[in-house]
């Protein structure tokens, strides 16, 4: 078995490509690395496959500005910028590698994420009531679980938030649970703020953070 050199990349998934699923992203990455001539390490066995792991799955339709992906190579990478450039040259629109390095911390140390949520269904006048709902002792939303909906109190999962008026609606900035134990989809922040489900909103994940709320790297 060849030696395995771990590699971590920070990337963005923005624009039209936000509409591909997590599973599709995995396939796209695999193809992308192959096109770029990245010397991917493969597992042994009947059906060899490369090692690709993401920090936290990004929901379909959400943009991610500083996402994390881990992979493994068969040789040591010496030119991290060159590697990113090579990948970016053959990447689909909206998938951009920012930087690469050898990881020191496990992905499970990601605990929080910062999101920007643009709520189309709200205006400046709604901000006070939205703030009130998200500041209450509890805020129960209907969470989709399979084909039915279950109740979920989002307050314990929100670390902090702020709101401001935006051109197309209201912008909510939130820091929410995004770790191995607890995850909150920012759609429920929007739903909770407006007190109903299925609020029309656009989400962008800005950062992944560790338990100390420092940017994970």
């Amino acid at each position: 078995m060849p030696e395995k050199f771990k590699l971590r990349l920070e990337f963005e998934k923005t624009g039209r490509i936000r509409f591909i699923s997590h599973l599709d992203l995995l396939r796209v990455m695999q193809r992308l690395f192959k096109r770029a001539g990245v010397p991917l390490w493969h597992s042994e066995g009947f059906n060899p496959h490369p090692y690709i792991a993401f920090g936290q799955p990004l929901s379909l339709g959400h943009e991610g500005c500083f996402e994390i992906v881990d992979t493994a190579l068969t040789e040591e990478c010496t030119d991290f910028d060159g590697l990113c450039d090579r990948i970016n040259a053959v990447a689909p629109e909206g998938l951009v590698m920012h930087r690469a390095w050898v990881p020191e911390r496990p992905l499970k140390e990601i605990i929080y994420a910062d999101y920007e949520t643009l709520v189309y269904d709200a205006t400046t006048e709604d901000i006070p009531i939205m703030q009130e709902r998200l500041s209450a002792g509890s805020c129960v939303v209907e969470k989709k679980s399979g084909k039915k909906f279950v109740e979920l109190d989002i307050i314990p999962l929100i670390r902090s938030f702020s709101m401001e008026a935006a051109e197309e609606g209201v912008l909510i900035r939130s820091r929410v649970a995004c770790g191995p134990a607890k995850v909150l989809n920012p759609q429920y922040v929007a739903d909770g703020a407006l007190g109903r489900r299925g609020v029309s909103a656009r989400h962008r994940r800005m950062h992944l953070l560790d338990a100390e709320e420092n940017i994970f790297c």
Partner: protein
Amino acid sequence: MNEFQKAERFLCEVQKPARYTGGEYGEVKKDLSGVSVRYAYGFPDTYEIGMSNLGLRILYGLTNSIDGVWCERVFAPWPDMEEKMRENGVKLYGLESGDAISDFDMVSFSLAYELCYTNMLNMLDLAGIPLLSAERGEGDPIILAGGHCTFNPEPAADFVDIFLIGEGEELNREVVELYRDMKAAGKSRAEFLAESVKIPGVYVPAFYDVSYGEDGTIAAVEAKCGAPARVEKRIIRDMDKAYWPDSYPIPNTEVVHDRVMTEVFRGCTRGCRFCQAGHVTRPIREKSPDTVVEQTIRHLEFSGGEEVSLTSLSTSDYRGLQEACDKLIAYCEPRSISISLPSLRADSVSMALLERVSKVRKSGLTFAPEAGSQRLRDVINKNLSEEEIESACTNAFASGWNSVKLYFMLGLPTETEEDIEGIADLANRLVFLWRQNAQNKNRGLKITVSTSSFVPKPGTPFQWFGQNTKEQLEAKIAFLKEKMTAKAVTYNWHEPEVSCLEGIFARGDRRLGAAILEAWKRGAKFDGWDDYFDYSRWMDCFAACGIDPAWYNARQRGMDEILPWDHIDTGVTRRFLARGWEAALRGETLPECSARCGGCGADRLKGGKCDA
């Protein structure tokens, strides 16, 4: 805000939104300042099907290689997306720009299959383009159509402005360039249409008057406005010099076939009498092994693909197969790229080659005997003997294959109960052969027998044959089901209703346009999909339009009847087809082209000498 930007708001609410975004690696974007012709390559089925289509890869690249032309893709939205689009007033848009295709200059449709007509209409409607050619005017896009269905273009004649008959690498370029130049010169739509018929392979149905006799058959087809009396199909004479793209859009989401495909030849030398493709794509033209290898590696490097398929109608007949495979294995093996060889014939299966190709990944073994008895295989000219199938399977079992798929057709001309029983007998014999020869019986044997219902197609020796009725076909399926007793054999069948509808359109005339329009109005779409196909709705539409469907599919045509597609010249002569029909009834086979020229006539298209 363009149409895509409007759609972005609701894309998360539809299934598989990646179908509707574009933005893939390999997508072509152009600066509008250098674009004078905007062209939409329409595929009247889902993104997943269209993006698996080799024709799209070639023609997308080709059209975009034309100076001043920007070609975008557009697929049929799934009904959930259609509903959202209609609800929100979003018009059908090109995936590359997100702009409404109603503002484009040309919209083409790839008509691969008879049941995609309603999708074409639905796409035109979603785009806000008038459905009927006669209702389109200055400012509306020119609607083009090509593909295998257009060897009988007549059922779609009401909806299409220009049919492109035959292969597109040269034809499409000539038509688009003519349009571009005439648009620059300020010429009108009518002037362009009149000029376009000077390009060989262009068929403008509005320039042909069809009259009918009292019995409903065609009395005459008259060309006017300078259009040729017969439109001869276009072919690429030298496949090594044909356009081959450097790049193509690589889907971001899973599609049906996400692999590199390289055609190794066009045409076919086998002459199976039921097979439309084997006749209408003649004459045979091969790529040299070096071209195949170079084109394959070009696409593997571009795409990062892990699988390549060498395609054609009968890949084992490719004379350069050994050489091309040797060279490709040398490239693919160290890179863990698998090679698949579809359309292998049992009689020429080189097990050594299959063995070597499957070193990387072993795929299943598939044979298409098509008919259950030697007598019927002779009728259809499937020159494949019982012994050949058995020895191929014996070899395969002995070298470790445990799964075989067999394809057959029901409803072939002259078919009897013995022929059908022969299907079950063959499957049972393979079970026996496996028991005798399998290396490792622990893994079990899986034989899958699939039957489809035969649809007589234009341009074949069976173009006169009255198709079996739905009831006859259903009875045959039930009969065969009874006979399939072995545990290792799974029997799958296609429902005959779909084939009966195909049978109506395959040999239909322009009078069927009314029924297509009516069916679309009543909600028909995605007729090729089980979830949407509604046979009784179609029957209601035929009745409402005063059309007797049986007259189109079940009627045995007279040998001297004018057929709706007679003015489309595939290169193969009607005389050759008629001889084939008579020989079929006598159970006489026709040797393969390379053994003896059957005189089909298609060599004329290549200047009098084909590659066989």
